[in-house]
């Protein structure tokens, strides 16, 4: 097994991201700060381990989102995203 086997889709982060943002984030679009590619978060490539995960741009591989959870806190690093669009219709419980 190598790194390739551990790769998941952004879809795998749906629960964690819904918990934090309150939106069905896998259908939301974001722009990569590295190459400018626009993708739904569900189409990002994800490496998850323990209580954290990193999502990468499927076009250039740049880290677009890092998320970790522990001791009652969430940590988010979004500097790889140039922008993120949230659609009101994807709000949970609406």
């Amino acid at each position, binding site marked *: 097994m190598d790194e390739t086997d551990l790769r998941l889709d952004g879809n795998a982060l749906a629960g964690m991201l819904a918990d934090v943002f*309150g939106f069905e984030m896998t259908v939301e679009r974001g722009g990569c700060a590295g190459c400018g590619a626009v993708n739904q978060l569900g189409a990002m490539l994800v490496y998850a381990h323990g209580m954290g995960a990193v999502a990468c741009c499927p076009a250039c591989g740049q880290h677009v989102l890092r998320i970790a959870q522990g001791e009652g806190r969430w940590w988010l690093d979004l500097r790889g995203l140039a922008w993120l669009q949230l659609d009101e219709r994807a709000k949970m419980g609406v």
Partner: protein
Amino acid sequence: MGRLSWRLAEVAEVRQETPRVVSIALDVPDWEGHRPGQHVDVRLTAEDGYQAERAYSIASAPAGERGSRIELTVERLEDGEVSPYLAGELRKGDQLELRGPVGGYFVWEPDRGGPLLLVAGGSGVVPLMAMLRRRAAAGSQVPARLLYSSRTLEDVIYREELDRLAAASDGLTVTHALTRAQPPGWTGYARRIDAVMLEEVGWPPGERPLAYVCGPTRLVEVVAGHLVALGHDPARVRTERFGPTGVP
């Protein structure tokens, strides 16, 4: 309203599907319904407080208004943290912590149309089964083809139900590939999914099918790569990678 959080579900039934796979029926109070292809996260907490969570696809079709019941189908991974408990220890009446339904990316509903190309490896068939169950329940005539790779015939999940669905002659065909062993007289594919198979079973790119590919990461990436190389629009090929689990 707003954020999604953990809640308790009760196990209503555990059913053996194959030697390594079980389906778990859960009663979830106030379940708001789900869409075919969505998943839930399941969280287990050890006595010392250690927690592990995993995502499991929902196998059942949305049940409509009467539905507080959902079904998950779980494959036991020998070195897994969560699946050995779910697929080995869990009993009727036990409680489970779950979060969901979530996921909007790998979702198909009849109004999305088709034609549909579903490609599964091993337990990757689970979210695709939710789509096929929904399609059948809705009386949808959207043409659909399932190409499903398993190790042996005994490892084929939902075998009888898939036979029944395919026999309904409503536009669904089911094609199996058995990669490790085949029963005497087997006339289906006897190898891993490859480009030739996808061309024979799938739709011509000109028909602009919607493709959903689910299974172990390597299989998903190989299949998605072939589909794009055959001329399918990458935007119409959706993937759900399961990670390193059970390579068929």
